[in-house]
């Protein structure tokens, strides 16, 4: 199965879990208490989030805490950046092309004026 950040945030319960622990790590029970669904269901979501790299489980004494790894979310904005980069590169090419076109036109017209208008 696919395990990436898009998969991780595709489910509303998983998004809730990330929001819940974004600012403060919580142990597994505390996370589960916030949801109507069964504890095994929550465990499964946490497992997926872990596999997608959005959550890290940390053992502290007898308890296991869920810590959010939000850096991973950058991957989503990276797609937007890729589109931006593609456009920027394309517009650079257009800019060069427009310059070349105008230079060519200027040269042509100045060549013409030299030909036709022989003035001192």
């Amino acid at each position: 199965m696919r395990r990436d950040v898009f998969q991780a945030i595709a489910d509303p319960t998983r998004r809730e879990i990330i929001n819940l622990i974004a600012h403060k790590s919580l142990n597994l029970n505390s996370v589960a208490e916030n949801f109507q669904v069964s504890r095994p269901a929550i465990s499964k979501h946490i497992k997926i989030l872990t596999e997608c790299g959005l959550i890290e489980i940390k053992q502290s004494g007898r308890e296991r805490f869920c810590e959010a790894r939000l850096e991973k979310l950058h991957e989503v904005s990276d797609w937007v950046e890729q589109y931006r980069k593609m456009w920027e590169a394309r517009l650079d090419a257009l800019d060069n092309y427009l310059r070349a076109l105008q230079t060519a036109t200027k040269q042509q017209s100045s060549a013409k004026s030299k030909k036709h208008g022989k003035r001192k």
Partner: protein
Amino acid sequence: MANVNELKQATATRDVLITRIFDAPRKLVWQAWTEPEHVMRWWGPKDFTSPVCKIDLRIGGQYHFCMRDQNGQDYWSKGVYLEIIPMTKIMATDSFSDAEGNTIPASQYGLPEDWPNELLVTMTFEDLDGKTKLTIRHQGIPDGQMKEMTSAGWNESLDKLADMLR
């Protein structure tokens, strides 16, 4: 520099917003965008060629572009014109496609599976004393309901994007 709030708003709805001022009259910029013989000269990224470019510039008309990389791999895109105001505005859909013009899921091009098959692109052309301001808005890039996310990490990404525009 782009207004940071404007940018945050745009990225919150997963739009890519780009503006560029060209030192060229609007008529020429418009031609460079709408006439195949011009488009083929610049559309592809560096080291790409653009062997095919069909433009049927009318509402409901289609475009079909091909970019070819150095290894001869072709990347096709196509779309339908939804709005055309000569010298002023073009709005069109944007999809990946094959050589025959069939839509191809974005996942075949290595994008995530939840990527929409059709994006929306709007280009506006403004005259600035003989120069031309071009604004491109690329909409429909999936947000994965990221709007709900108020996490620090997400805001950092936006700030990073804002920095890039400075």
